[in-house]
């Protein structure tokens, strides 16, 4: 499941809710791998007061759905959960959640890592920080 949204979310609550909404998954997975990216208050030498995430609405969702399908075709996993914020964020807020359920831990870890890496290098999001040295676009990794 893919969601791109402007409002804050609680990643641990989202996972709980999803698991409760899939009673048919119960007992079928033995491994859950999760990654949460959140906003630090310090980056590349400067205090960060807030961040604005610009995105390409439409293409973002298409891209994340595609990455999700790719992961499901490469590893034996259940439908991953991907949530990504856009708009204005303050430090400590979660930016992205990737959760992967599988029978085995290797598939869960590899698929989770694959999804977040693909998302970071290809999904059309752009971070702009407000720091103690002014406004700046975040440099790609």
């Amino acid at each position: 499941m893919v969601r791109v949204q402007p409002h804050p979310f609680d990643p641990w609550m989202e996972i709980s809710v999803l698991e409760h909404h899939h009673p048919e998954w119960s007992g079928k997975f033995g491994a859950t791998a999760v990654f949460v990216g959140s906003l630090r208050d310090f980056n590349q030498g400067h205090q960060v007061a807030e961040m604005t995430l610009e995105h390409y609405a439409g293409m973002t969702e298409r891209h994340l759905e595609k990455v999700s399908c790719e992961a499901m075709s490469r590893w034996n996993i259940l439908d991953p959960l991907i949530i990504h914020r856009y708009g204005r964020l303050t430090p400590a807020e979660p930016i992205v959640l990737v959760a992967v359920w599988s029978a085995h831990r290797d598939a869960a870890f590899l698929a989770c890592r694959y999804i977040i890496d693909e998302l970071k290098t290809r999904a059309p999001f752009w971070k702009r920080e407000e720091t103690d040295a002014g406004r700046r676009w975040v440099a790609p990794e």
Partner: protein
Amino acid sequence: MGTISVRYFARVREQLGKGQELIDSEGIRCVADVWRRVSGAAPSTKVLVAVNQEYAAMDHPVGTGDEVAFFPPVTGG
């Protein structure tokens, strides 16, 4: 005569001073033609391209009704 929808994001949006526009598809064969028209500059490897919301190269064909987007390297996640 048709139009092509062109969109700009992040630093590219700021540098061109526009978020989106419609351009006349007359004389447009590929993405590079669109870029020259809207920026007045030669194609740059620092600018990424999507055609109809899929990544594409500067030589990707473009015509009436297409959506073309230009943006810098992404920094999500």
